[in-house]
């Protein structure tokens, strides 16, 4: 088993072997989630703090559930805005929480790099639950798990990441993870939402959705934010839908056994046609289920990963 790190900060700096270890461990925990008593004991006695500086429902709940199912003690701390504005620095806030003797910190923050910043003064394990526009590694891992679970391997699969690559931490984590496991990755969106030098990450970059979707196996569709229109990056969401929306017609370009993914929450009828979100090719709800199992795997591995503990009911 290859997993020796103390923190999970991003997928850019983890190895393919480490990702595979997470995927295999996730399968074990997914089985736990099917049991009548969905609880094991490997994190018993450990305390995990979920510190969310940015509103999040799904990721926070998913982490809390994963922690509880591993028998950890958990506490959640939500800060509506950056504490800097309230006169306390982030460093002080986190050190105060840490003074209450916690073992792991799950952090979501609107500023890129905050989890790295924390590792400079925290003695706890740090898990990045989304930092600015940088990375969202557990989302990347659960997306990758959902693909791996269905196809058995990512090698040679063609995966299209649709949407706002400039502002998306989910796309970044997907890019690093998918390319490490041998997938052929394409990113598609309007040029105003494609960051400079994206092609240097080892992906193909498209502004023509038909070319991007041609022969693809998986399409992972990102939520498009209304703010992008307000910031002048898009003329209108309506035009975005007509140029980049995933429609039934466009699905014809995909391989037969195709998969539709979305990290949620979905803007139905904008980036993704309503009927496609609920079709048999969609694994969108499965992603949510896998999210809990992946986060259990990550917490478990970062805590030291003693597998004998997973059998306790």
């Amino acid at each position, binding site marked *: 088993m290859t997993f020796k790190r103390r923190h999970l900060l991003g997928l*850019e700096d983890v190895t393919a072997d480490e990702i595979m270890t997470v995927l295999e461990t996730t399968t074990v925990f997914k089985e736990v989630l099917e049991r009548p008593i969905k609880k094991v004991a490997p994190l018993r006695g450990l305390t995990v703090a979920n510190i969310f500086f940015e509103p999040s429902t799904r990721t926070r709940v998913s982490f809390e559930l994963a922690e509880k199912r591993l028998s950890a003690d958990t506490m959640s701390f939500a800060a509506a805005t*950056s504490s*800097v504005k309230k006169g306390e*620095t*982030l*460093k002080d806030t986190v050190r105060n929480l840490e003074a209450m003797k916690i073992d792991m910190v799950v952090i979501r*923050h609107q*500023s*890129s*790099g*905050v989890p*790295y*910043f924390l590792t*400079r003064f925290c003695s706890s394990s740090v898990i990045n639950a989304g*930092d*600015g*526009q*940088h*990375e969202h590694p557990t989302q990347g891992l659960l997306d990758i798990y959902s693909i791996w679970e269905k196809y058995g391997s990512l090698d040679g699969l063609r995966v299209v990441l649709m949407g706002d690559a400039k502002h998306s*931490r989910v796309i*970044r984590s997907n890019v690093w993870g998918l390319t490490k496991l041998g997938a052929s990755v394409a990113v598609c969106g309007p040029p105003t939402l494609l*960051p*400079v*030098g*994206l092609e*240097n*990450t080892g992906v193909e970059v498209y502004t023509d959705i038909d070319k991007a979707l041609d022969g693809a196996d998986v399409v992972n569709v990102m939520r498009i934010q209304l703010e992008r229109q307000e910031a002048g990056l898009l003329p209108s969401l309506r035009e975005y839908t007509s140029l980049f929306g995933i429609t039934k017609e466009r699905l014809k370009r995909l391989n037969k056994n195709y998969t539709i993914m979305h990290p949620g929450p979905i803007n139905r009828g904008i980036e993704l046609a309503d009927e496609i979100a609920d079709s048999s090719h969609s694994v969108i709800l499965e992603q949510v289920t896998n999210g809990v199992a992946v986060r259990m795997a990550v917490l478990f591995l970062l805590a030291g990963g003693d597998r004998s503990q997973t059998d306790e009911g």
Partner: protein
Amino acid sequence: MKVKLIKNGQIVFPDRDEPVEGDIYIEDDRIERIELKGEGKAGKKAGKAGGSGRESAKDEVIDASGLLVFPGFIDVHVHLREPGREDCETIASGTEAAAAGGFTAVACMPNTTPPIDNQESVMFVKQRAHGCKARVYPIGAISKGRKGKELAEIGEMVRTGAVAITDDGSPVNDAGMMRRAMEYAGMFGIPVISHAEDISLSGRGVMNEGYESTRLGMPGIPPFSEEICISRDITLCKYIGTPLHIAHVSTEGSVDLIRRAKAQGVNVTAEATPHHFTLTDVEIGKEFNTNLKMNPPLRTQRDVDAVIEGLADGTIDIIASDHAPHAPEEKEVEFDQAPNGIIGLETMVSLAGTFLVKTGKLSWNDLARKLSANPSRIMRLPGGDLLAGGVADITILNPKSTWTVRVDKFRSISRNSPYDGWKLNGRVKYTIVGGEVTFAD
């Protein structure tokens, strides 16, 4: 300590190609005469021939054997934070840092709180600087409150001692405003210093826009934000003719624009900072160190190479620190929340020695031009050369000494330097202002 004689030093004249051995005799605050080995007395422009020849007391003599003797270094771009942020730096502490870094004079930027935008503020800085360890030349704001709307009282500031004007820290967004500033400053002959940035392009950016900002998910500042503003100001300068000085040049395109403008005879000069010739944006992702956050941001290796090339071929006239002190609690925060800027007075000379001279890109005599002669000429300041009858502002450097940067040893109140732990070549031995030793290692 008053110095009477600096003997056996390798004297680095800005108008020569290599150091020459000689003795410098000082009378009060002036250089009395210079005797060069093999060239006899008064190597050049000797005022009084002959000299007194009396024996100097031992403690008034510096034996500079094996050391380089420069005209005192002048840093034309420092933020001394007084008034307003005396917790980060004061005129006293900033000039201590300057002396320790080999500087005999600094020109300080007007973005204080309140800003230096009137003659009372200029007077305040000059009064505070009295008795400090370096000469301090205030730079006035272009606009009232640095708001870019109305011209500040430039004439009164110049009369009180301001040596240039700038809204540094922010650009002058409005081309019409910049035009009026250049026209108006023209009647005083002072340079207008441009902090070149097009805010509509740099927006909320916190680092260079490129592969690294994409990788790190940070809003970027594109190189053309700087270049478009430089193009604008060069064009204005071409028509108006007032000396234009471009602060902290950071991109390949900027160097190119200035090079071409100079070839066309435009009255433009430029400076570059040590961080823009020693660091790239690749460093940021290693640990999101906010001491790598400044404006203009660290760029790419191509840009670093272009800045060094620009220094070597004379496109960039001056090396300046952009010394920008910030308190630890301001810098120890989220990368995008941290203020821009790093301190540089105490590392600049050694960074230049290590990354420009040791690498063979520049000679020591080039450094005498970039750090002494050109700052003096462009900002019209005393010093800048070693001349009989001239001010005895002198910096003595040991070129062979290596040392390790320790931020906790800095004279500056602030510690925000990315160079902590770096091993550098060339160390300041003595700094002498008007014949008085302000720093001795």
